[in-house]
């Protein structure tokens, strides 16, 4: 069953009088439980594609459907609510809030729910347990290594049990060892917890963890690889 359906999605930006096409009539279908790797050189449109899936950007044309929702037609307010319920986003630079502890960072998305403080605490500790950082709950980002920060960011992304996990170059700022740990974790979330993941990367080693790969170049799909590591 398809979780994501992009139909003829186009996106362009204006730079002065010039119009730069970032995505040109891209159509993708991603089944539920898939681990999709999006590859391509810089400026190929892969991050834009991810942003469209996350509902933080809107297509110029075409349809973006996630589950039963056509997100391109949602209002800003509805999109925010939809993101809170369905999307877990992992950034390249972790983007943890420096003044909040690991626990508080992971708790952040739960503040938008109606959970009680005790329930929030249970969820946070479960998420930190999954990423192996229960003992670092009270540490602040500056007290963590890059790999640990990214794992906290992954805990923040999964704490609401979202429908879809989106990762934008999740290993791009990590050394090989930490990067590998993060990829193992993502793979585990996909296989063990059946999370659908879309990961943008230009690292071939990272791409090997995905079950499917798509290549983008100059805003168009150039090649669709079958199962990579199923």
């Amino acid at each position, binding site marked *: 069953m398809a979780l994501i359906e992009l139909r003829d999605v186009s996106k362009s930006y204006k730079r002065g009088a010039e119009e730069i096409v970032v995505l040109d009539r891209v159509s993708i279908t991603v089944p539920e439980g898939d681990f999709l790797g999006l590859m391509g050189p810089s400026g190929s449109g892969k991050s834009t594609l991810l*942003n469209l899936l996350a509902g*933080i950007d809107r297509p110029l044309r075409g349809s973006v459907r996630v589950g039963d929702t056509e997100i391109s037609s949602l209002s800003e307010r509805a999109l925010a609510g939809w993101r*809170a319920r369905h999307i877990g986003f992992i*950034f390249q630079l972790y983007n943890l*809030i420096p*003044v*909040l502890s690991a626990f508080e960072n992971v708790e*952040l998305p739960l503040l938008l729910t109606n959970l009680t403080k005790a329930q929030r605490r249970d969820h946070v500790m479960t998420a930190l347990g999954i990423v192996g950082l229960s003992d670092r709950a009270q540490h602040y980002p500056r007290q963590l290594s890059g790999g640990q920060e990214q794992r906290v960011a992954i805990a923040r992304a999964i704490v609401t049990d979202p429908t879809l996990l989106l990762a934008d170059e999740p290993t791009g700022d990590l050394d090989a060892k930490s990067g590998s740990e993060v990829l193992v974790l993502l793979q585990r979330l996909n296989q063990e917890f059946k999370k659908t993941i879309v990961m943008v990367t230009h690292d071939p080693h990272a791409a090997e963890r995905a079950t499917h790969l798509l290549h983008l170049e100059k805003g168009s799909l150039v090649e669709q690889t079958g199962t990579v590591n199923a």
Partner: protein
Amino acid sequence: MKYINLVLKSARRSKRRTALTMLSVAIAVFLFASLQAVLDGFDAVAAASSSTRVVTIRSTSMIFPMPTSHVEVIKSTAGVQDVTWANWFGGIYKDPKNFFGQFAIDPESYLRMYPEVMLTPEEKKAFLEDRTGCIVGDGLAKKYGWKLGDRIVLQPGIPQYGSQDYPFTIRGIYRAGSSAVDNQSMMFHWKYADERSTQKGLIGWLVSQVSNPDQAAQVAQAIDQKFANSPYETKTETEKAFSASFASMLGNLNVLLGSVALAVVITTLFVAGNTMAMSVRERTTEIAVMRTLGFPSGVIFALIVGEGLVVAVLGGVIGAGLARLVINPEILQMSGGFIPAFGVNNWNVVVGLGLSAMIGVLAALLPAIMASRLKVVDALRRVA
């Protein structure tokens, strides 16, 4: 409530900056509450002044005296029930720094017309019977540790009263029955000063009791008409107007102090606004991340306004608390000086806190609007 931790942690992000912003709001609220208290003090004096008493001074200035013959002339004016008079003495108690009001009064008529000067019957009797006796306000007695029977000596400060010291015996310690009477003053027999004066039979001002307050203006006019074209022309007005004009000798206080307070508040508003804008600008990525996590723009707006509010109100609490502590009648009396007994009251504190809340909200408003309208993709791209 679940967002309060987030607001507090954000406010503590740059402790020095937050502390300085808080301090600037604290100073603004301190000044505002203090200046408001000063204005309230003058208003209270004017409000408590009697509307059945009219005050007569020389038309040129109250520093020029009038002859005692004015008393009988005024007494004969229609509508006047009673008349008393007083002189400014201007003596020195040990040191010129020990400044307080000293008035040579006609004791019987003065105490009759000023029931607000509250004495026990025994004190009143003792004072009336002792030509060198005096009465002092309880605030003044407390300041110098005086008690009944104490002897004090004043050195004359105005040449008219000669150069010899004036010894007095404290016969009464009065309580002020209203704000119109200052409890920091001393009063004694006019005759005692007059008999040693080089210019005898002169009085500083006259106070007349009118039978009908509605006719006070007409009576005042009638009094002045009696002395028109004489060497001692007069200016008569109600005690309330007299108090107000006395205050206005210091300039238009309301406008002056109000302008100072307004300038301080506006300056603080800009300082706090600039700080909030700087703080939010530094957090552009964090705000974009929170929006990506699903935080609606309304919540982002409320978080930033909340942060401004918390910082400003905490500053307001410090400022208002300090003003309440420092600007109170007891401390001001200890500091000496001839000023009305005023203090920062609860209302001044409430207004001060309201002002700090307003500063907080207004300072955060623009940054909050900008943050809530932030384009998430653009903000994230700036970092990547």
